[in-house]
């Protein structure tokens, strides 16, 4: 595997770290969605970088397109959940949702 692949994987790891950090520390539900978007970018980059390294960019592109379609559907469901949570509880704070612990 040539060093270009490692370069891209380096950036993938950094983006993953940023996304997971966002999910761990942020409180606003919509901010947590931004974390998910960042993770999605990391994964797309990893897929295309691998495709480039193997000279099979076409296959990698179809994988990324499928992944992006899945991501859109997931974001739609998630945002539907957020809007409903807001309507029920008038709050977007994840700490308010912690009452399910037990």
């Amino acid at each position, binding site marked *: 595997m040539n060093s270009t692949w490692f370069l891209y994987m380096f950036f993938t790891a950094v983006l993953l770290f940023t996304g997971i950090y966002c999910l761990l520390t942020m409180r606003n539900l919509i901010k947590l969605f931004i974390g998910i978007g960042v993770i999605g970018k990391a994964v797309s980059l990893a*897929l295309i970088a*691998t495709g480039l390294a193997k000279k099979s960019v076409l296959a990698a592109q179809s994988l990324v397109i499928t*992944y992006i379609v899945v991501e859109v559907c997931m974001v739609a469901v*998630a945002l539907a959940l957020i809007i409903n949570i807001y309507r029920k509880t008038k709050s977007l704070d994840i700490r308010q*949702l912690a009452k*399910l612990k037990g």
Partner: protein
Amino acid sequence: MIFLFIALPLVVAGVLPLLGKVSKRVLPDALANAVLLFLLVESVLLGKQLAATGPFVQQFSWLGEPVNLRLALDGFSLLMLFAVSLVGLCVGIFSIDYMEHYGSKANYWALFLIMVAGMNGLVLSTDLFNVYLFLEVAAVASYALVAFGLESDELEAAFKYLMLSVVASAFIVIAIAVIFGVTGSLSFPAVARGLQDLDTKYVVGFCAALFIMGFGLKAALMPFHAWLPDAHPSAPAPISAMLSGLLIKVSGVYALTRIFFNIFGLTPALSAVLMYLATLSMVAAAFLALGQKDIKRMLAYSSISQVGTIVLGLALGTPLGIAGGLFHLINHALAKGLLFLNSGSIQQATGTRNLDEMGGLAKRMPVTAATNLVGSLSIAGVPPLNGFWSKLIIIIALVQAGHMGFAVVAVLASVLTLWYYLLIQRKAFFGKLNERWKDVKEAPFWMLASNVILALLCIGIGIFFSLTIKTWVRPAADALSQGVRLAFDSWGM
């Protein structure tokens, strides 16, 4: 035509909301359950075909050109298809009555069928990325189904489930990308061959770690279980049954086992890691279940514990261990499905899930109490019910392989399991009838019917356990024991 397992539920799901405008209740109910019944019959017929020919691959052509729609069926896939259609049908029958007051039933059935299609697709695919894709299909449907009632705690539980699931999916796709990078392909035979040819210990180790984190979260293996105790109790009872009984096993245990056995090849290191994680799940979740007041939360922790038992049997790697793990998988799917459906009956009749508030319900709801007893004893492993045999096989396999410590822990966990299930029985059903419940009625017809069917299955499989093992479990265990050779021979390109 094994493609029907994916295509039929999808097509019917697409059509259902339109039909739902015409007939809000009867037609969607009948159509969805007819599809599930058809899939069940089809899986039994396929079982006969499989016994005759051995594992096979079907390739489809579209308008004359062969398209890459390759679906593979072997014993393990067939066992999962059978479990999905069987439990799915019983849960479907239950939902006819239970989902009445939720509204929008056509939509519910559509999402339900999409979840079934996703699980079937996962089980039949021969390509790593397809496994991920169908996993997501089932997951997206399940997020909406968990939140279906639109109550505050359902929405919150669905949101947490979604959050954790996304991280798991990301890990899985990155592992898939690395495997693609190393072997240049995504299909099972090519990847298996590639990993054999190259010296890839560290890469396999890294990808295995990512897969354990990703699929382990889907299977609610400790320490990746945090979403389950919130998601399963809050979901509507039939969805809790589907999730606990099927989804965590198909998207978690099946995917993990398939990849580790037939593609990577089970190494002693992998086996050890999985066995330790499984034992952690088995014991810690059993202790956590003891302190619960909410009946569904107790059942949720019990699911985590039983998944630990299943993975312990599978990770052992010996043919007996694999057989025990697979047998327990199907037993738990039936029994846990039954128990969650029962909790739905209780919740609908009394309006509460708090064990301290119930009491003496056996007098007013005798059928529910009886089926609950069967389900509880089955999971706790009391003879002659089915759970006893599967747990016994796992413990014997552990002893035979020399893992005395694990065997002792497994027995202790079984005792704990029996204790908290008897606690449910005592608090909810037996004892003095709580004044509040003196007017509750037994559950409606369809709910009772599905409970009785599942209970009879538990008893029947317990009595005829050797027949069940011979027809269903043995082919599946053989498929897994062949390890990487299965990828070369049966799915060969």
